[in-house]
């Protein structure tokens, strides 16, 4: 029996060497053992350094008056459990796989601002009659100026049977959270506050320029509805999408 085993082993090795695969294995083994020796000699290092800086930037001249700022807080949560789903003889079933649960909570802060774009402001927006002045301002717009993840308070619970959340997965959840904030902002009074803020900035300005407060009228488009808010939120270009 042992003789047979040795015979087969020898024949396999010979075949491998004949095909030069054995040589490849030998080289790989040598490289692996050398890297192991190196690892033993050097201490494990955790020092991180950065490389490859790259920049693409865009410069845009503008004239925007930001009149209101909302600071938003949101905790993004994700509950992930693998489920076997299917149907057996037209009967649907769903079964949670045990020990497959993963959870993450990501606290996020966002800054949203309301502004009036004065870039296209002209004499068409101004009506003067005697000492009176009436200014019709363009529709206020809303933009998300910044978002910040509170990395110190991110919590993850991952079952030992599952792999950790990847950076790509977490980034995707953060993007979804950002989209939820933009969606929810339309339910606030930010548009009205942006209009009020604009009046509060412009009236003192015109007063200093010599107008009486009672002679100043700041107006906006009347038929602006809360349903218009989604169209007034600045869209950001999602790179690569």
């Amino acid at each position, binding site marked *: 029996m042992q003789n047979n085993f040795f015979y087969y082993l020898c024949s396999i090795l010979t075949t491998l060497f004949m095909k030069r695969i054995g040589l490849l294995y030998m080289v790989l083994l040598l490289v692996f053992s050398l890297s192991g020796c190196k690892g033993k000699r050097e201490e494990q290092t955790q020092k991180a350094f950065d490389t490859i800086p790259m920049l693409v930037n865009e410069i845009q001249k503008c004239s925007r008056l930001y009149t209101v700022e909302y600071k938003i807080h949101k905790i993004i949560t994700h509950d992930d459990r693998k489920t076997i789903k299917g149907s057996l003889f037209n009967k649907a079933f769903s079964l949670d796989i045990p020990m497959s649960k993963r959870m993450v909570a990501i606290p996020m802060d966002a800054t949203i601002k309301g502004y009036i774009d004065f870039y296209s402001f002209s004499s068409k927006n101004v009506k003067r009659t005697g000492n009176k002045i009436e200014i019709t301002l363009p529709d206020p717009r809303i933009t998300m100026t910044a978002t910040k993840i509170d990395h110190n308070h991110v919590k993850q619970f991952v079952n030992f049977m599952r792999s950790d959340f990847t950076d790509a997965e977490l980034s995707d959840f953060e993007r979804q959270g950002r989209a939820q904030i933009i969606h929810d902002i339309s339910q606030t009074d930010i548009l009205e506050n942006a209009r009020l*803020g604009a009046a509060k900035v412009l009236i003192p300005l015109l007063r200093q320029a010599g107008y009486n407060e009672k002679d100043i009228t700041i107006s906006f488009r009347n038929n602006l509805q809360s349903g218009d808010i989604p169209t007034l939120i600045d869209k950001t270009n999602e790179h690569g999408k």
Partner: protein
Amino acid sequence: MESNKRRSFLRSIINKLSLKGALMLGSVLLLLVVVSLILRWIDKSNSLYIEENKRIDLTPTLIKSIEEIGEWEFLQLTDEELVDTIKHGFFGDSRLVRIYYGTLRLGFNLHEAGPGWLKQDKDTLRLMLPPIRLLDKDFIDEARTKAFYESGSWTEADKQALYDRAYKLMMQRCVTTANIQTARRNACLQMESMMRSMGFGAVKATFAQPER
């Protein structure tokens, strides 16, 4: 000639089959049809797959504060930074590469304007504008960050370090003397144009601090 041969071959087989054999053959064919129909029905009515949730939960969005501001923006710089970090380990190197997006806004805050910053001087309206600066220190849209490459395991502290590095890079590249001067020039142009649109004939906008 060929067809005659084939016909005679088939005829010889049929002649050899007894009634019992024919019945057997028929029942086998019927069984095959029934089995194939059952298999097709099972395939249609049964399915099995593993589902994984990729969506976040619906959570409340809280407004922490509402503030009235008077920030006038004259130059907007959109920036993206590719930042990476490497960790050398026993079993190989770990690498994390992320792309950060930010928008830096240069302008002035009207709340910083001094008393009498806007006054009528004979026939000219004079504006003494507050200094141009970065309007908001938070300018990175971190929730838009693109996870470009990841190998090995990384902590939240590592990601914070990358964010800080991207922040510094954006500041260095965008808040430059040249950009501040561009914003100053645009601020003067825009403010003069706006006041002229409001009916003031001669308008002169300047900054309290001289251009560097």
